[in-house]
């Protein structure tokens, strides 16, 4: 805690003359008085370098041209009370899994906060904070952007069940190497380009499986309405093609039980529906999905 106070004290003094600090701020020189090593590590680290260059106009706080000089308090909040009484309770520590901690990050990274609120609210409601996945900038990141762990292991500590699914005999290859959940999941919400687009459900899959994106002249409604997970388990499955059933015929029959008596299931050819209805994801020319 003393380090944070030092950093707050020292950084405060470095704000250029004439650059008005927001109310209650003391500037980075005031922080540095007690937290010199912390400030040095931050300035030399990737977050500090970014704030010194590209981020000079990103921070919405009144720090135009002096973002790095005000960097301590832009995350830790106003430091005046802490400078007067160096206690843990009167400064935002950014430690612990609380939304208060995330407030330090979202003061600048508001777009990411908005994306999480709309697209992954479970993280928010479960108390997952930015620093559960990211490092603050004082420590060396394991991967970018400021990730606390390697991308392959980032989500595993909390999502053990999902990790276990990738151990099944037929696992999604994207998860084999490296295990990057963000290949499909956009944690902060997303843009159309990066996901084409997370907003539309099945489009997570057709980002790579573009040939199934359609729209098709004769679509298979479960794919278009219920999404790919109507028939597939996306992380892994004991069944080939990540299907939810070991027998293809049983999977189809669960919805197509009113099909014609012509389909005599005692014959092998009728136990594998895709051997005739090969266009199971939709067809451009055949209403019975015989051909793509």
């Amino acid at each position: 805690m003393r380090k944070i106070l030092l950093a707050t004290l020292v950084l405060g003094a470095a704000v250029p003359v004439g650059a008005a600090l927001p109310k209650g701020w003391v500037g980075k020189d005031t922080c540095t008085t007690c937290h010199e090593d912390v400030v040095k590590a931050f300035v030399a680290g990737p977050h500090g370098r970014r704030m010194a260059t590209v981020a000079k106009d990103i921070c919405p706080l009144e720090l135009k041209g002096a973002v790095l000089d005000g960097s301590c308090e832009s995350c830790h909040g106003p430091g005046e009370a802490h400078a007067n009484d160096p206690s843990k309770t009167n400064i935002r520590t950014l430690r612990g899994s609380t939304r208060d901690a995330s407030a330090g990050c979202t003061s600048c990274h508001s777009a990411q906060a908005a994306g999480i609120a709309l697209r992954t609210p479970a993280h928010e409601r479960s108390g997952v904070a930015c620093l559960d996945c990211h490092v603050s900038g004082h420590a060396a990141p394991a991967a970018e952007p400021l990730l606390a762990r390697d991308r392959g292991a980032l989500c595993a500590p909390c999502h053990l069940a999902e990790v276990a699914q990738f151990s099944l005999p037929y696992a999604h290859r994207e998860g084999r190497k490296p295990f990057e959940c963000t290949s499909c999941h956009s944690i902060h919400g997303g843009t159309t380009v990066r996901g084409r687009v997370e907003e539309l459900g099945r489009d997570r899959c057709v980002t790579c499986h573009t040939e199934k994106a359609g729209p098709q002249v004769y679509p298979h409604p479960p794919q278009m309405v219920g999404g790919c997970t109507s028939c597939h388990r996306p992380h892994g499955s004991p069944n080939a093609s990540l299907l939810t059933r070991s027998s293809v015929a049983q999977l189809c029959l669960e919805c197509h039980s009113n099909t014609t008596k012509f389909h005599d299931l005692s014959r092998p050819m009728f136990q594998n529906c895709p051997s005739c209805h090969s266009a199971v994801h939709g067809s451009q020319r055949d209403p019975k999905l015989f051909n793509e």
Partner: protein
Amino acid sequence: MRGKSWWLGGALVSLAVAASAQEWGQVGVGYAWLNSDGNRDTYASQYDLSNGLFLDTLRLDLHSFFPGVSRFEVSASGFGAEPFARASVRAEWDREWSLRLDYTRRRGAFAPLFVGLSAASSFVPSQWRSDEFALARWTGSLAYDGWDFGRLRLDLRDVSRSGSQTFAFYGLGLPYVARSSLDDRESEAGISLETRHWPVHLLLEQDVAWYTRKSRGSVADGGQPLNTNDQYVLSQFTTPGKDSGTVPTTRLGLNYRDDRFELIGQGLYRRDRFDADRNDTTGWHLVGGAGDTSFIDALTGKADTDTKLGDLRLGWAATPSLTLRVVGHYQDSSSDLGVAGNEILRIVGGGGTFDFPLPVSDQGVLNRTDKDVAGEVDLHQGPFGLLVAYHDGSQQAAWQHGLAYQREDVTRDAKGWNATASLALGRTFTAQVGWQDQSFERYVFLTDPETVSRLWAKVTARPLAGLELSAYGNHDRADNPASEVSLRQPADGAGISGTYTAPSGAFVNVNLDVFKLTSSADITFFAPLLTSGVSRYDTNLLTTGVRGGLPIGKTLRLEAGALQVKDRGASLPFTSHAYDARLEMAGPLQFDFGVFANYWKYDLKNSGDQDYNVTRCGVSVRRRF
């Protein structure tokens, strides 16, 4: 060979650059030997690591190495004898520009189970259908941060797929094999502007995607039927057509937050325009000179889809620890579909060619509308958090496959509760427990569950430095009534994990997971007469894993892992094993040397068709700078 030369050349160039770099870098290559026994296609569909040279690692971090460029980083791995390869470049210059460029290439193979067809006399699983493809994906962005007003960003994406697909199909009542070479590409470009200093942050994004598909079919296996020498020999399988589409998307997002209020929203509009121009021919040669017969689909298809989407979230902090929210979601997509042209039966024989065209003109629709509104009470006080939400939504789906088909129009209403409680004592201990319960009133598909309930809990503890323990459990129930398909789908899972990392760098990790799912649904069988049956699926998985790393002296490091997955369920019992070990030695002149070995085994209890044993071992060398 061309690809191998490319990455090998790149590695050598990088080596030369790294040797002169002021900063940091490493280059590593390896060579692997593979020995396999059993179904190689099944192995390929799951791992597909192979023989040969591969790029183990490449990393260059050059900060202020080039004039004006404050950051330039290159990384790559996996090129060569691995199914997944990646490369990336990051650069920043003039304090205003930043560039990101990523490339990934995945090699894939499928060996689907054609269990029922195994009754056919000449059935060989790996020959019936086998996809081999390579998926290459480029993504990149260029951002400009030089304006006070906001950030301008250009995003690009390109995905292409190549390879071949070999498949069996039924024609003239007999099974044949055909092949299709794959040629798909989707490219996408987007430009976005994000404001900064206004009270409300705005994001405006315009994006366009283009898609083309030109798969080319051909006859495989000589055109003979698979299980007999018949008089019908497949002589022609051609697909000279092309599918193409254009997808422009416009998106506007906004967000505002202060100590008391939050407003987050977005709107999206998309128009998919898709055209299929087909002239596919499937033809048979009649043995004995009787002639040829072929079916030609000279058809043009068109599919247009408009999508509108909106999200809104309004929050009010009634007190510093209590926030009330209203969340709404709306999505509407409507598709107009059509196909026109001729289906032609062509007979060649008797001194002439005779065409019997059947004009085709068909139309269909597929519309979907989702609506959902929810109210949330969000309470958090110190380390405690509680969120309770109620939501009321509906999904309307309407489709008509063609003019000869009945129009389906179903609306499903959904209501439900969910609650989550959380406790976070710094990073020492975190716990979450949640409950979700919802019900649907109607069905889009027969297997939609009417009620879904789920109880889950997760705990993570870090009681000592370097020690992390975690556990989870979930209990799910889903069902629907006999008037649909009597769906019953209980699922239960639990797992524990522990990791200890010593200051020396030694670590050990153990995992144990159990998952049990039993699902049943009423279906109808057709043989010998129309009879009722039950589709059952039962899986009972036990996954155990251990992994550890140990430094030995100052120059050696050993890392090894073992994983076993065992399905004790009734549907598809199997056991799979995966073991790996790697020994690395720090050598002179910043060189590191390594040897590694992998062993995989897959054993399907009820059939030997899919089983395999694979061993892979190799060596690697890495140079750090």
